[in-house]
């Protein structure tokens, strides 16, 4: 009956005379008795809903006009909570952050500021000198730590993790026994608290930790001491455990996506390759990778953005201060800088956040542009 009524409303299908057993009955307008209410369309046919039961009034179909109406106030009622929340917690903050990034000395408790300026960007980008409260003449931690670290992290972990995930998922896809089990095992790092596992990594890379023991680095550090990965060590060494942790943590999601992509590839391609006796690496490079390119693109975009926003893993391994050398802030990333300056230098934090936003936008558009030429869909 619903279908009939739908067609009636849309006027697409000619209405059948006589009605059906459920009780849809069409009558010619001339014969319509005066008491019959119902739906009327283009003055020709009237549909009356009937039932086997004897009822005083024929069914009234109420609320049907909601379906077609373009002015449905009820829809706005359903949307009201979301719209209010989106405006307060998504759209207003976006505009407000951009606004704050152009204000001078924004005070987050009072909301007061000393006029507008472009200096915030100049100061954090190390172009304009800045007399801070602790006497430093330049604000350096953004350019000398946050930006390089973020870029290193991104350009190391994203390609490595995607390639590794690709190899693992192709291997997983080629086996039959234990496939589900192994897939679950590879998914486990996703279902963890990153702070907890980050601490495990810092134990593994400790002075007396397992990594030094296995690789015989117990006397490879300064003054014949153990190799130091996490404490009192330059940034490039501390990057090793950090990158390993990020790759370890980000692989499960990539395997999940790539594996579902692989399982969607038509087997005929592989059979054709088999007939041509194509070598396995060629099958991989010419069939698997091109056909997976939508998934790879998706992963590249999401993991680029994710790597740019790295924060939790640094806190997990190196602690809340984000440094391996006391007072140097040498493990800062862009996001770390933002969070660290929210209350003290709100304007700088906002400027850094806008900077991050712009970078992410540029990279996303660039990747879309590059992929529009290369991705096989």
């Amino acid at each position: 009956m619903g279908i009939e009524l739908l067609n009636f409303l849309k006027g697409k299908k000619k209405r059948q005379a006589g009605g059906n057993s459920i009780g849809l009955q069409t009558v010619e307008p001339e014969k319509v008795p005066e008491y019959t209410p119902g739906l009327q369309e283009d003055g020709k046919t009237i549909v009356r809903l009937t039932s086997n039961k004897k009822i005083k009034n024929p069914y009234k179909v109420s609320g049907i006009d909601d379906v077609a109406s373009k002015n449905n106030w009820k829809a706005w009622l359903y949307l009201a909570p979301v719209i209010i929340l989106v405006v307060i917690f998504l759209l207003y903050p976006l505009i407000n952050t951009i606004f704050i990034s152009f204000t001078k000395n924004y005070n987050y408790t009072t909301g007061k500021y000393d006029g507008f300026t472009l200096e915030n960007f100049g100061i954090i980008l190390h172009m304009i000198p800045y007399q801070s409260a602790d006497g430093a003449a330049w604000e350096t931690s953004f350019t000398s730590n946050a930006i390089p670290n973020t870029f290193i992290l991104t350009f190391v972990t994203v390609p490595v993790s995607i390639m590794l995930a690709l190899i693992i998922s192709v291997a997983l896809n080629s086996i039959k026994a234990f496939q589900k089990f192994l897939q679950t095992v590879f998914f486990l790092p996703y279902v963890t608290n990153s702070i907890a596992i980050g601490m495990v990594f810092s134990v593994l890379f400790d002075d007396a930790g397992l990594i030094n023991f296995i690789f015989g680095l117990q006397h490879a550090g300064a003054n014949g001491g153990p190799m130091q990965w996490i404490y009192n060590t330059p940034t490039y060494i501390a990057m090793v455990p950090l990158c390993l942790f990020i790759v370890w943590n980000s692989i499960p999601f990539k395997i999940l996506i790539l594996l579902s992509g692989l399982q969607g590839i038509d087997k005929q391609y592989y059979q054709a390759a088999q007939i041509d006796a194509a070598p396995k690496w060629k099958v991989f490079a010419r069939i698997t990778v091109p056909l997976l390119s939508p998934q790879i693109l998706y992963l590249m975009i999401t993991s680029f953005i994710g790597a740019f926003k790295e924060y939790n893993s640094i806190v997990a391994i190196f602690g809340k201060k984000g440094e391996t050398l006391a007072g140097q802030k040498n493990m800062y990333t862009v996001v770390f800088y933002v969070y660290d300056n929210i209350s003290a230098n709100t304007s700088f934090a906002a400027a850094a956040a806008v900077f991050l936003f712009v970078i992410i936008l540029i990279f996303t558009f660039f990747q879309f542009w590059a992929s529009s030429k290369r991705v096989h869909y």
Partner: protein
Amino acid sequence: MLFEEELEQQVVEEEQVEETPLEEKPEVVEEVHQEQPQPEKEEKAQYIDFASVKVNNNLVLSITEASKTVDQIKKAEKVTHIIFTALTYLFIVALALIVIFPFYWMIITSLKTYSEITQEQQTFFPSVVMWTNYVYVFQHFNFLTYMKNTIVVAIFSTIGTLLTTIFAAFAFSRLQFKGREALFMVFLATMMIPGEMMVISNYITVASFGWITSSTHTQTLMEAYAAMIVPFWVSVFHIYLLRQNFKQIPNELYLAAKVDGKSDWSYLWKVMVPLAAPTLISITILKFMGTWNSYVWPNLVTEIPQYRLISNGLRESSFQNADLGTIEYGYQMAASILVTVPLFLLFIFFRKYIMKGVGRAGIKG
């Protein structure tokens, strides 16, 4: 590989001459004659003039490549296949072991004594199993408080998210109103904005609501909860996800419900929500996992440690030895295990929903 023979083939007919009934003979010869005119690579093939040879019905076609027979090739292929599969398994299992190794190390470190953890000769199994590490952690790490906070925040933010998501997805998928598509595009566009852009202003907003400790005000537990819950009542991605799910429900059901005099409201709760239950379960679990893992926001908006969530609690409790200043890794790892185990239990029971939800969502929390 098996089909390679089509490229370079040599046809050799091996016959075994035996006594055969005479009636069958002409048929066989006919068949052979049909096969004989091979269009390709004739110069390479060696043919035997079957007409002149006495042929019986025990014809064996033997195809060879590089002087190997099919059986040999098959065997070689089988061997390479087995070797390749074995290598694949070796590779995969080795990587799987590496992947789960941190978990193993977490478990055994939590059971070791401090001296065993820091000794030069690392051990892969604790020589003395220290269950007392856990006793110590339960006494000194406010696990239950953090867990209570996390569960309260998770439950209320999940309920709020589910409600707003269901309403919005219903409006976007089933109801019609002016500017529906445009509004939905605006919603989708907000997904592009990094959350870090919002954190600063949200912090200010929450502070202006009076939910954060300031010079004139001390945060209460309820305010801490509100600050951690309310900003996460909306998730554009989940709206998108649920809208797609709602759209798959045939429109006829809606009109049928209308004919039966059901309102939008009861249709939503009696038909759509039950039909979309798997998606809603996925959203719930991912939201729980997100709260369990959230670190930054609770760290920003709460001042008192007892109001914080489990990740903050874990990071803050350094388990430092008061005398030596060293970190007691055994205790730290025991606490980490306590934080990890609930997530694992969730994973064991809802593996299907989690993996499906993550596959579509791809966002942690």
